């Protein structure tokens, strides 16, 4: 097995458990073998700067070039320059999340339409 996704400063990850489920965050620093310091950035993804367990992160293949312990401003700039949100919206994981969300919000008529299709 070759690993292609790494925990590193600037790795964008999706939070897969908890209140912030489905939101993106960027790894800003590694605290220890279990925890990372992570920032949304809050203005873009809604995730506050906080420590989070790696178990709650699903690493994506998107990385941004930021220095260690970058401030929110720097991460926002990097996000805009590297068009992270666009890349994320095209990714299969995001599309899967959207599909699941759509299925969960269908009403009976929509399910009937799907059944016929």
């Amino acid at each position, binding site marked *: *097995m070759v*690993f*292609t*996704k*790494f*925990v*590193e*400063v600037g790795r964008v990850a999706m939070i*897969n*458990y908890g209140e912030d*489920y489905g939101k993106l965050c960027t790894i800003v*620093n*590694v*605290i*220890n073998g279990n*925890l990372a*310091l992570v920032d949304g950035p809050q203005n873009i993804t809604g995730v506050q*700067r*906080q*420590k989070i367990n*790696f*178990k709650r*992160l*699903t*690493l994506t*293949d998107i990385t941004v070039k930021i*220095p*260690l*312990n970058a401030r929110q401003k720097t991460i926002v700039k990097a996000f805009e320059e590297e068009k992270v949100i666009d890349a994320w919206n095209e990714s299969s994981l995001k599309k899967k999340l959207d599909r699941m969300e759509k299925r969960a919000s269908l009403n009976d008529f929509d399910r009937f339409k799907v059944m016929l299709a």
Partner: protein
Amino acid sequence: KKMAIREFIVVGRKEPSEAEPNPPLYRMQVFARNEVIARSRFWYVLHAARKMKKTTGEILSVNEVVEKNPNTVKNFGMWLRYNSRSGIHNMYKEFRDTTLCGAVEQMYADMNGRHRARASSVHIIKTAVVKAEDTRRPNLKQMHNSKIKFPLTHIQPRASHKRYRAKFVTSRPTTFAG
């Protein structure tokens, strides 16, 4: 689930009397889950160290110390004294966390796991923020790398919410996520 450990500064003194109208103040840094326990710990230590107790003294103030910057990662050095099954020992341990109280929680868990020393047997002598170059433990030093990079080698898949846990699953889990 236990409440979080918080840091309190308790200041107390012996009750003023005619002989001693201005007794010296004693200040103590206490790590406790609530203020009640903090006060109790204060009297436990002061009763052992000085000739005063809850009935003959007074606590003048209990203030919680909140982490000044919980968004930066720091290295904490901790000097402890703990009871093992056959004696009392001193220890120095290092933990990396964003807050001192977080590091103290890690320490209690670590002492419990590694030495079977329950929280009641562990006494914190001193805590300090240590600069990365002054840390002594290799497991901490390995994190001091601005280009740190490692894969998550063994991922245990988990339902996104407790309600989606299945009692029986038909497929074997894959622990590789790339």
